[in-house]
Protein backbone atom coordinates (compact mmCIF):
# COMPACT_ATOMS: atom_id res chain seq x y z
CA UNK A 1 0.00 0.00 0.00
CA UNK A 2 1.24 3.50 -0.87
CA UNK A 3 -0.17 6.54 0.85
CA UNK A 4 -0.45 9.86 -1.02
CA UNK A 5 0.87 12.29 1.57
CA UNK A 6 -0.53 15.76 0.75
CA UNK A 7 2.92 17.26 1.48
CA UNK A 8 5.36 14.61 0.22
CA UNK A 9 3.50 12.76 -2.51
CA UNK A 10 3.04 9.01 -2.71
CA UNK A 11 5.05 7.16 -0.05
CA UNK A 12 5.35 3.59 1.21
CA UNK A 13 3.00 2.63 4.06
CA UNK A 14 6.07 1.71 6.15
CA UNK A 15 6.80 5.42 6.61
CA UNK A 16 3.52 5.94 8.43
CA UNK A 17 2.04 5.01 11.78
CA UNK A 18 -1.65 4.49 12.37
CA UNK A 19 -3.91 5.97 15.02
CA UNK A 20 -7.43 4.93 14.01
CA UNK A 21 -10.75 6.44 13.04
CA UNK A 22 -10.76 10.21 12.54
CA UNK A 23 -13.54 12.44 13.75
CA UNK A 24 -13.87 11.08 17.30
CA UNK A 25 -14.68 13.96 19.63
CA UNK A 26 -13.32 13.81 23.16
CA UNK A 27 -15.97 14.93 25.66
CA UNK A 28 -14.86 17.85 27.75
CA UNK A 29 -12.91 16.20 30.60
CA UNK A 30 -14.38 17.33 33.89
CA UNK A 31 -17.89 17.90 32.58
CA UNK A 32 -18.17 14.67 30.58
CA UNK A 33 -20.44 12.00 31.93
CA UNK A 34 -18.70 8.61 32.27
CA UNK A 35 -20.85 6.93 29.62
CA UNK A 36 -19.89 9.52 27.00
CA UNK A 37 -16.22 9.18 27.88
CA UNK A 38 -16.38 5.35 27.70
CA UNK A 39 -18.03 5.63 24.30
CA UNK A 40 -15.30 7.97 23.07
CA UNK A 41 -12.46 5.78 24.37
CA UNK A 42 -13.77 2.32 23.48
CA UNK A 43 -16.59 2.18 20.91
CA UNK A 44 -15.90 2.27 17.18
CA UNK A 45 -17.99 2.03 14.00
CA UNK A 46 -15.36 -0.27 12.44
CA UNK A 47 -16.98 -0.10 8.99
CA UNK A 48 -16.34 -2.52 6.13
CA UNK A 49 -16.03 0.18 3.46
CA UNK A 50 -14.81 3.79 3.37
CA UNK A 51 -13.25 4.94 6.64
CA UNK A 52 -11.77 8.34 7.50
CA UNK A 53 -8.71 7.65 9.60
CA UNK A 54 -5.63 9.34 11.04
CA UNK A 55 -2.11 8.46 9.90
CA UNK A 56 1.15 10.06 11.01
CA UNK A 57 3.94 10.46 8.46
CA UNK A 58 6.66 9.57 10.98
CA UNK A 59 9.49 8.98 8.49
CA UNK A 60 8.60 11.91 6.26
CA UNK A 61 7.11 15.31 6.98
CA UNK A 62 5.95 14.31 10.48
CA UNK A 63 2.48 15.64 9.94
CA UNK A 64 -0.90 14.08 10.66
CA UNK A 65 -2.99 13.09 7.65
CA UNK A 66 -6.66 12.24 7.33
CA UNK A 67 -7.01 9.42 4.85
CA UNK A 68 -10.26 8.12 3.38
CA UNK A 69 -9.58 4.47 2.65
CA UNK A 70 -11.81 1.51 1.79
CA UNK A 71 -11.12 -1.15 4.43
CA UNK A 72 -12.23 -3.92 2.05
CA UNK A 73 -9.82 -3.07 -0.77
CA UNK A 74 -7.26 -0.66 0.74
CA UNK A 75 -8.15 1.77 -2.07
CA UNK A 76 -7.52 5.39 -1.01
CA UNK A 77 -10.12 7.94 -2.08
CA UNK A 78 -8.72 11.06 -0.41
CA UNK A 79 -5.78 12.32 1.63
CA UNK A 80 -5.69 15.70 3.29
CA UNK A 81 -3.85 17.40 6.16
CA UNK A 82 -5.61 16.43 9.39
CA UNK A 83 -5.79 20.09 10.38
CA UNK A 84 -8.10 20.88 7.49
CA UNK A 85 -10.79 18.65 9.03
CA UNK A 86 -10.25 19.61 12.64
Amino acid at each position, binding site marked *: *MRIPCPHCGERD*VGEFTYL*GAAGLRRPDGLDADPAAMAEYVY*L*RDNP*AGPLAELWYHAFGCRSWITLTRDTRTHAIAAAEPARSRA
Partner: protein
Amino acid sequence: MRFSALTLAAQALRGNRGWSPTWRDAEPKRDYDIVVVVGGGHGLATAWYLAREFGLTNVAVLERSVIGSGNVGRNTTIVRSNYLLPGNIPFYERSMKLWEGLEQDINYNAMVSQRGVLNLYHSDAQRDAYARRGNAMRLHGVDAELLDREQVRARLPFFDYANARFPIAGALLQRRGGTVRHDAVAWGYARAASDRGIDIVQNCEVTGIRRENGRVAGVETSRGFIGARTVGLAVAGASSQLAAMAGMRLPLESHVLQAFVSEGVKPLIDHVVTFGAGHFYVSQSDKGGLVFGGDIDGYNSYAQRGNLPVIEDVMESAMALWPAIGRLRVLRHWGGVMDMSMDGSPIIDRTPIDGLYLNAGWCYGGFKATPASGFCFAHLLATGTPHPDAAAFRLDRFAAGRVIDEKGMGAQPNLH
Protein backbone atom coordinates in the same frame (compact mmCIF):
# COMPACT_ATOMS: atom_id res chain seq x y z
CA MET B 1 -19.27 -40.64 7.84
CA ARG B 2 -17.08 -42.91 9.93
CA PHE B 3 -13.47 -43.71 9.16
CA SER B 4 -11.65 -46.94 10.02
CA ALA B 5 -8.85 -49.04 8.57
CA LEU B 6 -11.52 -51.28 7.05
CA THR B 7 -13.44 -48.46 5.32
CA LEU B 8 -10.18 -46.94 4.07
CA ALA B 9 -9.11 -50.26 2.52
CA ALA B 10 -12.55 -50.91 1.06
CA GLN B 11 -12.72 -47.41 -0.44
CA ALA B 12 -9.22 -47.72 -1.85
CA LEU B 13 -10.30 -50.85 -3.75
CA ARG B 14 -13.47 -49.12 -5.02
CA GLY B 15 -11.68 -46.01 -6.25
CA ASN B 16 -12.87 -43.80 -3.36
CA ARG B 17 -16.28 -43.35 -4.96
CA GLY B 18 -18.35 -44.50 -2.00
CA TRP B 19 -17.59 -41.82 0.59
CA SER B 20 -20.54 -39.94 1.98
CA PRO B 21 -20.34 -36.35 3.28
CA THR B 22 -18.80 -35.93 6.74
CA TRP B 23 -21.77 -33.86 7.95
CA ARG B 24 -25.29 -33.19 6.69
CA ASP B 25 -25.59 -30.13 4.44
CA ALA B 26 -28.87 -29.14 6.10
CA GLU B 27 -31.73 -27.10 4.64
CA PRO B 28 -32.77 -24.39 7.11
CA LYS B 29 -36.03 -24.92 9.02
CA ARG B 30 -38.42 -22.02 9.69
CA ASP B 31 -37.38 -21.71 13.29
CA TYR B 32 -35.07 -23.05 15.96
CA ASP B 33 -34.60 -22.68 19.70
CA ILE B 34 -31.07 -21.36 19.16
CA VAL B 35 -29.31 -19.97 16.09
CA VAL B 36 -25.51 -19.68 16.09
CA VAL B 37 -23.89 -17.33 13.56
CA VAL B 38 -21.50 -18.46 11.92
CA GLY B 39 -19.98 -21.87 11.25
CA GLY B 40 -16.39 -21.10 12.17
CA GLY B 41 -14.43 -22.94 14.83
CA HIS B 42 -16.13 -21.18 17.72
CA GLY B 43 -19.63 -21.49 16.27
CA LEU B 44 -19.25 -25.20 15.55
CA ALA B 45 -17.74 -25.82 18.98
CA THR B 46 -20.67 -23.95 20.52
CA ALA B 47 -23.09 -26.21 18.64
CA TRP B 48 -21.31 -29.35 19.84
CA TYR B 49 -21.27 -28.32 23.50
CA LEU B 50 -24.93 -27.23 23.31
CA ALA B 51 -25.69 -30.81 22.30
CA ARG B 52 -23.23 -32.55 24.62
CA GLU B 53 -23.58 -30.47 27.77
CA PHE B 54 -27.19 -29.40 27.58
CA GLY B 55 -28.87 -31.89 25.22
CA LEU B 56 -30.08 -29.03 23.00
CA THR B 57 -30.36 -30.07 19.37
CA ASN B 58 -33.06 -27.77 17.95
CA VAL B 59 -30.12 -25.60 16.96
CA ALA B 60 -28.86 -24.23 13.64
CA VAL B 61 -25.39 -23.02 12.73
CA LEU B 62 -25.69 -20.52 9.86
CA GLU B 63 -22.53 -20.21 7.78
CA ARG B 64 -22.23 -17.48 5.16
CA SER B 65 -19.88 -19.50 2.96
CA VAL B 66 -18.71 -23.08 3.53
CA ILE B 67 -17.43 -24.70 6.74
CA GLY B 68 -13.72 -24.13 7.26
CA SER B 69 -13.35 -21.20 4.85
CA GLY B 70 -12.76 -18.51 7.47
CA ASN B 71 -10.27 -17.95 10.26
CA VAL B 72 -10.47 -21.55 11.51
CA GLY B 73 -8.48 -22.45 8.41
CA ARG B 74 -6.31 -19.31 8.38
CA ASN B 75 -4.54 -19.49 11.73
CA THR B 76 -1.15 -20.98 12.63
CA THR B 77 -2.67 -23.88 14.65
CA ILE B 78 -0.95 -23.08 17.96
CA VAL B 79 -2.56 -23.99 21.29
CA ARG B 80 -1.26 -22.86 24.69
CA SER B 81 -2.51 -21.53 28.03
CA ASN B 82 0.45 -19.38 29.13
CA TYR B 83 -1.52 -16.34 30.29
CA LEU B 84 -0.83 -13.97 33.16
CA LEU B 85 -4.07 -12.43 34.39
CA PRO B 86 -6.64 -14.16 36.62
CA GLY B 87 -9.47 -13.35 34.20
CA ASN B 88 -7.72 -15.23 31.43
CA ILE B 89 -5.86 -18.19 32.94
CA PRO B 90 -8.80 -20.41 34.03
CA PHE B 91 -10.47 -19.91 30.66
CA TYR B 92 -7.44 -20.79 28.53
CA GLU B 93 -6.57 -23.68 30.81
CA ARG B 94 -10.09 -25.04 30.36
CA SER B 95 -9.43 -24.77 26.63
CA MET B 96 -6.16 -26.70 26.98
CA LYS B 97 -7.87 -29.46 28.96
CA LEU B 98 -10.61 -29.69 26.34
CA TRP B 99 -7.96 -29.93 23.59
CA GLU B 100 -6.37 -32.81 25.49
CA GLY B 101 -9.63 -34.78 25.42
CA LEU B 102 -10.99 -33.47 22.12
CA GLU B 103 -10.26 -36.40 19.84
CA GLN B 104 -11.94 -38.92 22.14
CA ASP B 105 -14.79 -36.49 22.77
CA ILE B 106 -15.74 -35.94 19.13
CA ASN B 107 -14.21 -39.17 17.79
CA TYR B 108 -12.14 -37.36 15.19
CA ASN B 109 -8.40 -37.24 14.61
CA ALA B 110 -7.49 -33.57 15.10
CA MET B 111 -3.73 -34.33 15.31
CA VAL B 112 -3.42 -32.76 18.76
CA SER B 113 0.35 -32.48 19.24
CA GLN B 114 1.58 -31.30 22.66
CA ARG B 115 5.07 -30.53 21.45
CA GLY B 116 5.74 -27.72 23.89
CA VAL B 117 5.68 -23.93 23.48
CA LEU B 118 8.86 -21.96 24.24
CA ASN B 119 8.72 -18.19 24.67
CA LEU B 120 12.31 -16.98 24.37
CA TYR B 121 13.60 -14.15 26.55
CA HIS B 122 16.57 -11.97 25.72
CA SER B 123 17.22 -9.77 28.76
CA ASP B 124 17.15 -9.85 32.55
CA ALA B 125 13.97 -7.77 32.63
CA GLN B 126 12.24 -10.09 30.20
CA ARG B 127 13.35 -13.12 32.25
CA ASP B 128 11.77 -11.57 35.33
CA ALA B 129 8.55 -10.89 33.44
CA TYR B 130 8.43 -14.48 32.21
CA ALA B 131 9.21 -15.82 35.68
CA ARG B 132 6.25 -13.83 36.95
CA ARG B 133 4.05 -15.17 34.18
CA GLY B 134 5.21 -18.73 34.87
CA ASN B 135 4.49 -18.31 38.59
CA ALA B 136 1.01 -16.97 37.83
CA MET B 137 0.38 -20.00 35.64
CA ARG B 138 1.59 -22.45 38.30
CA LEU B 139 -0.53 -20.78 40.98
CA HIS B 140 -3.51 -21.60 38.74
CA GLY B 141 -2.38 -25.21 38.24
CA VAL B 142 -0.95 -24.69 34.73
CA ASP B 143 2.42 -26.20 33.85
CA ALA B 144 5.31 -23.78 33.30
CA GLU B 145 9.10 -24.08 33.44
CA LEU B 146 11.72 -21.37 33.22
CA LEU B 147 14.68 -22.53 31.14
CA ASP B 148 18.13 -20.97 31.04
CA ARG B 149 20.21 -20.49 27.90
CA GLU B 150 21.87 -23.93 27.99
CA GLN B 151 18.57 -25.70 28.53
CA VAL B 152 17.20 -23.95 25.45
CA ARG B 153 20.36 -24.67 23.47
CA ALA B 154 20.07 -28.39 24.28
CA ARG B 155 16.64 -28.44 22.63
CA LEU B 156 17.17 -25.90 19.85
CA PRO B 157 20.90 -25.82 19.00
CA PHE B 158 20.48 -24.08 15.64
CA PHE B 159 19.38 -20.63 16.86
CA ASP B 160 21.73 -17.63 16.88
CA TYR B 161 22.73 -17.58 20.58
CA ALA B 162 25.61 -15.19 19.94
CA ASN B 163 23.42 -12.54 18.32
CA ALA B 164 24.92 -9.27 19.57
CA ARG B 165 21.66 -7.39 19.69
CA PHE B 166 19.18 -10.09 20.75
CA PRO B 167 21.15 -12.80 22.63
CA ILE B 168 18.90 -15.66 23.74
CA ALA B 169 18.99 -15.81 27.53
CA GLY B 170 16.43 -18.57 28.09
CA ALA B 171 12.76 -19.39 27.67
CA LEU B 172 9.46 -19.97 29.40
CA LEU B 173 8.32 -23.46 28.45
CA GLN B 174 4.80 -24.83 28.55
CA ARG B 175 5.17 -28.52 27.72
CA ARG B 176 1.43 -29.09 27.28
CA GLY B 177 1.20 -26.42 24.59
CA GLY B 178 1.57 -27.34 20.95
CA THR B 179 -0.40 -27.48 17.72
CA VAL B 180 -3.70 -28.91 16.48
CA ARG B 181 -4.71 -29.51 12.87
CA HIS B 182 -7.10 -26.59 12.43
CA ASP B 183 -9.25 -27.87 9.55
CA ALA B 184 -9.83 -31.13 11.39
CA VAL B 185 -11.14 -29.15 14.34
CA ALA B 186 -13.80 -27.58 12.12
CA TRP B 187 -14.65 -30.86 10.39
CA GLY B 188 -14.69 -32.85 13.64
CA TYR B 189 -16.95 -30.42 15.51
CA ALA B 190 -19.21 -30.14 12.45
CA ARG B 191 -19.61 -33.91 12.18
CA ALA B 192 -20.12 -34.39 15.91
CA ALA B 193 -22.76 -31.64 16.12
CA SER B 194 -24.47 -32.75 12.91
CA ASP B 195 -24.68 -36.35 14.16
CA ARG B 196 -26.54 -35.13 17.25
CA GLY B 197 -29.15 -33.51 15.00
CA ILE B 198 -27.91 -29.93 14.84
CA ASP B 199 -28.43 -28.30 11.43
CA ILE B 200 -25.29 -26.93 9.81
CA VAL B 201 -26.53 -24.62 7.06
CA GLN B 202 -23.94 -23.44 4.55
CA ASN B 203 -24.20 -20.58 2.04
CA CYS B 204 -26.68 -18.83 4.31
CA GLU B 205 -25.67 -15.23 5.00
CA VAL B 206 -27.28 -13.36 7.84
CA THR B 207 -28.47 -9.97 6.56
CA GLY B 208 -30.47 -8.71 9.52
CA ILE B 209 -31.47 -9.38 13.11
CA ARG B 210 -35.22 -9.13 13.67
CA ARG B 211 -36.37 -7.74 17.00
CA GLU B 212 -39.88 -7.70 18.44
CA ASN B 213 -40.68 -5.81 21.67
CA GLY B 214 -36.99 -5.32 22.41
CA ARG B 215 -36.21 -9.02 22.13
CA VAL B 216 -34.64 -11.07 19.37
CA ALA B 217 -37.17 -12.87 17.18
CA GLY B 218 -34.84 -14.35 14.58
CA VAL B 219 -32.48 -13.55 11.74
CA GLU B 220 -33.04 -12.43 8.16
CA THR B 221 -30.84 -14.47 5.85
CA SER B 222 -30.07 -14.89 2.16
CA ARG B 223 -32.30 -17.99 2.41
CA GLY B 224 -35.22 -16.30 4.14
CA PHE B 225 -36.25 -15.50 7.68
CA ILE B 226 -35.25 -17.99 10.38
CA GLY B 227 -36.95 -17.58 13.75
CA ALA B 228 -35.11 -18.05 17.03
CA ARG B 229 -35.53 -16.57 20.51
CA THR B 230 -31.84 -17.05 21.20
CA VAL B 231 -29.19 -15.88 18.72
CA GLY B 232 -25.47 -16.20 19.36
CA LEU B 233 -22.99 -14.21 17.30
CA ALA B 234 -19.52 -15.75 16.88
CA VAL B 235 -18.41 -13.99 13.72
CA ALA B 236 -14.86 -12.79 14.50
CA GLY B 237 -13.84 -10.03 12.06
CA ALA B 238 -17.44 -9.30 11.04
CA SER B 239 -18.66 -8.71 14.61
CA SER B 240 -19.09 -4.96 14.15
CA GLN B 241 -21.27 -5.47 11.04
CA LEU B 242 -23.54 -8.02 12.75
CA ALA B 243 -23.77 -5.84 15.86
CA ALA B 244 -24.69 -2.84 13.69
CA MET B 245 -27.69 -4.85 12.41
CA ALA B 246 -28.91 -4.79 16.00
CA GLY B 247 -28.03 -1.13 16.47
CA MET B 248 -24.94 -1.70 18.59
CA ARG B 249 -21.38 -0.35 18.42
CA LEU B 250 -18.64 -2.59 19.80
CA PRO B 251 -15.21 -1.96 21.37
CA LEU B 252 -13.58 -3.64 18.37
CA GLU B 253 -11.54 -2.89 15.28
CA SER B 254 -11.00 -5.40 12.47
CA HIS B 255 -7.37 -5.82 11.45
CA VAL B 256 -5.56 -8.10 9.02
CA LEU B 257 -3.00 -10.63 10.30
CA GLN B 258 -0.69 -12.41 7.89
CA ALA B 259 0.79 -15.90 8.17
CA PHE B 260 3.37 -17.79 6.14
CA VAL B 261 4.35 -21.33 5.17
CA SER B 262 7.76 -22.33 3.82
CA GLU B 263 8.48 -25.14 1.40
CA GLY B 264 8.36 -28.58 3.02
CA VAL B 265 11.53 -29.92 4.62
CA LYS B 266 12.44 -32.86 6.84
CA PRO B 267 11.74 -32.52 10.59
CA LEU B 268 13.67 -29.45 11.66
CA ILE B 269 12.06 -27.87 14.70
CA ASP B 270 10.22 -29.93 17.30
CA HIS B 271 8.49 -27.19 19.30
CA VAL B 272 6.50 -24.02 18.89
CA VAL B 273 8.95 -21.16 19.47
CA THR B 274 8.29 -17.45 19.89
CA PHE B 275 11.00 -14.80 19.51
CA GLY B 276 11.02 -12.43 22.46
CA ALA B 277 12.80 -9.47 20.89
CA GLY B 278 10.32 -8.96 18.08
CA HIS B 279 7.05 -10.51 17.06
CA PHE B 280 7.80 -13.85 15.37
CA TYR B 281 6.68 -17.39 16.06
CA VAL B 282 7.34 -20.64 14.25
CA SER B 283 6.44 -24.31 14.26
CA GLN B 284 6.61 -27.09 11.69
CA SER B 285 3.57 -28.80 10.23
CA ASP B 286 3.42 -32.54 9.69
CA LYS B 287 3.72 -31.89 5.95
CA GLY B 288 7.12 -30.31 6.66
CA GLY B 289 6.43 -26.64 6.02
CA LEU B 290 7.52 -24.11 8.61
CA VAL B 291 4.41 -22.23 9.72
CA PHE B 292 5.20 -18.75 11.00
CA GLY B 293 3.88 -15.26 11.52
CA GLY B 294 4.22 -12.01 13.39
CA ASP B 295 2.38 -8.76 13.92
CA ILE B 296 -0.90 -7.58 12.48
CA ASP B 297 -0.54 -4.98 9.74
CA GLY B 298 -1.77 -2.34 12.18
CA TYR B 299 -4.59 -0.57 10.33
CA ASN B 300 -8.29 -1.39 10.01
CA SER B 301 -8.84 -3.91 7.24
CA TYR B 302 -11.40 -6.38 5.98
CA ALA B 303 -9.19 -7.44 3.07
CA GLN B 304 -7.82 -10.94 3.62
CA ARG B 305 -4.42 -9.83 2.44
CA GLY B 306 -1.76 -7.60 3.93
CA ASN B 307 1.17 -5.45 2.91
CA LEU B 308 4.92 -5.84 2.45
CA PRO B 309 6.33 -3.90 5.46
CA VAL B 310 4.94 -6.51 7.88
CA ILE B 311 6.26 -9.34 5.72
CA GLU B 312 9.70 -7.75 5.81
CA ASP B 313 9.47 -7.31 9.58
CA VAL B 314 8.54 -10.98 10.09
CA MET B 315 11.39 -12.17 7.86
CA GLU B 316 13.90 -9.93 9.67
CA SER B 317 12.83 -11.33 13.03
CA ALA B 318 13.13 -14.85 11.64
CA MET B 319 16.67 -14.16 10.42
CA ALA B 320 17.69 -12.60 13.74
CA LEU B 321 16.57 -15.70 15.60
CA TRP B 322 17.42 -18.45 13.17
CA PRO B 323 19.77 -17.52 10.30
CA ALA B 324 19.40 -20.92 8.60
CA ILE B 325 15.74 -20.13 7.86
CA GLY B 326 17.01 -17.79 5.14
CA ARG B 327 17.81 -20.81 2.98
CA LEU B 328 14.13 -21.74 2.76
CA ARG B 329 11.66 -20.27 0.34
CA VAL B 330 8.23 -19.02 1.38
CA LEU B 331 5.68 -21.18 -0.35
CA ARG B 332 2.57 -19.14 0.38
CA HIS B 333 1.18 -16.51 2.69
CA TRP B 334 -2.27 -15.21 3.44
CA GLY B 335 -4.24 -12.90 5.69
CA GLY B 336 -7.17 -13.28 8.04
CA VAL B 337 -9.40 -10.59 9.54
CA MET B 338 -9.08 -10.33 13.34
CA ASP B 339 -11.62 -8.81 15.72
CA MET B 340 -9.13 -6.81 17.79
CA SER B 341 -10.66 -5.71 21.08
CA MET B 342 -9.74 -2.59 23.01
CA ASP B 343 -7.91 -4.47 25.80
CA GLY B 344 -6.72 -7.50 23.82
CA SER B 345 -9.12 -9.87 25.59
CA PRO B 346 -12.33 -11.48 24.32
CA ILE B 347 -16.02 -10.87 25.02
CA ILE B 348 -18.47 -13.69 25.82
CA ASP B 349 -21.56 -12.01 27.16
CA ARG B 350 -25.18 -10.98 26.88
CA THR B 351 -25.96 -7.84 24.93
CA PRO B 352 -28.46 -5.10 25.87
CA ILE B 353 -30.94 -6.89 23.56
CA ASP B 354 -32.73 -9.83 25.16
CA GLY B 355 -31.89 -13.11 23.47
CA LEU B 356 -28.87 -11.75 21.60
CA TYR B 357 -25.46 -12.99 22.78
CA LEU B 358 -21.99 -12.01 21.68
CA ASN B 359 -18.77 -14.01 21.33
CA ALA B 360 -16.07 -11.72 19.89
CA GLY B 361 -12.82 -9.86 20.40
CA TRP B 362 -10.47 -12.82 19.99
CA CYS B 363 -7.71 -10.69 18.50
CA TYR B 364 -5.21 -13.14 17.05
CA GLY B 365 -5.64 -15.73 19.82
CA GLY B 366 -8.91 -17.24 18.72
CA PHE B 367 -7.84 -20.67 17.59
CA LYS B 368 -6.39 -21.88 20.89
CA ALA B 369 -9.59 -20.73 22.59
CA THR B 370 -11.92 -22.67 20.27
CA PRO B 371 -13.07 -25.45 22.67
CA ALA B 372 -13.45 -23.26 25.77
CA SER B 373 -15.10 -20.51 23.74
CA GLY B 374 -17.66 -23.00 22.47
CA PHE B 375 -18.04 -24.53 25.92
CA CYS B 376 -18.62 -21.23 27.70
CA PHE B 377 -20.74 -19.71 24.93
CA ALA B 378 -22.94 -22.83 24.92
CA HIS B 379 -23.35 -22.40 28.68
CA LEU B 380 -24.36 -18.77 28.19
CA LEU B 381 -26.82 -19.54 25.35
CA ALA B 382 -28.39 -22.48 27.21
CA THR B 383 -28.67 -20.96 30.67
CA GLY B 384 -28.54 -17.20 30.10
CA THR B 385 -25.79 -16.90 32.71
CA PRO B 386 -22.03 -16.68 32.11
CA HIS B 387 -19.85 -19.70 32.75
CA PRO B 388 -17.51 -18.97 35.73
CA ASP B 389 -14.41 -19.46 33.55
CA ALA B 390 -15.56 -16.71 31.17
CA ALA B 391 -17.20 -14.46 33.75
CA ALA B 392 -14.56 -11.75 33.29
CA PHE B 393 -15.18 -11.46 29.52
CA ARG B 394 -18.01 -8.98 29.98
CA LEU B 395 -19.11 -6.51 27.35
CA ASP B 396 -19.54 -3.78 29.96
CA ARG B 397 -16.05 -4.18 31.44
CA PHE B 398 -14.72 -1.31 29.35
CA ALA B 399 -17.17 1.25 30.67
CA ALA B 400 -16.80 -0.20 34.18
CA GLY B 401 -12.99 0.01 34.11
CA ARG B 402 -12.44 -3.74 34.55
CA VAL B 403 -10.40 -4.27 31.40
CA ILE B 404 -8.25 -7.42 31.06
CA ASP B 405 -5.14 -5.91 29.54
CA GLU B 406 -2.47 -8.69 29.37
CA LYS B 407 0.02 -6.41 27.64
CA GLY B 408 -0.77 -3.14 29.41
CA MET B 409 -1.26 -1.41 26.07
CA GLY B 410 -4.46 0.49 26.81
CA ALA B 411 -7.32 1.05 24.42
CA GLN B 412 -5.28 0.64 21.23
CA PRO B 413 -6.43 -2.43 19.27
CA ASN B 414 -3.53 -2.24 16.81
CA LEU B 415 -1.02 -2.57 19.67
CA HIS B 416 -2.43 -5.76 21.21
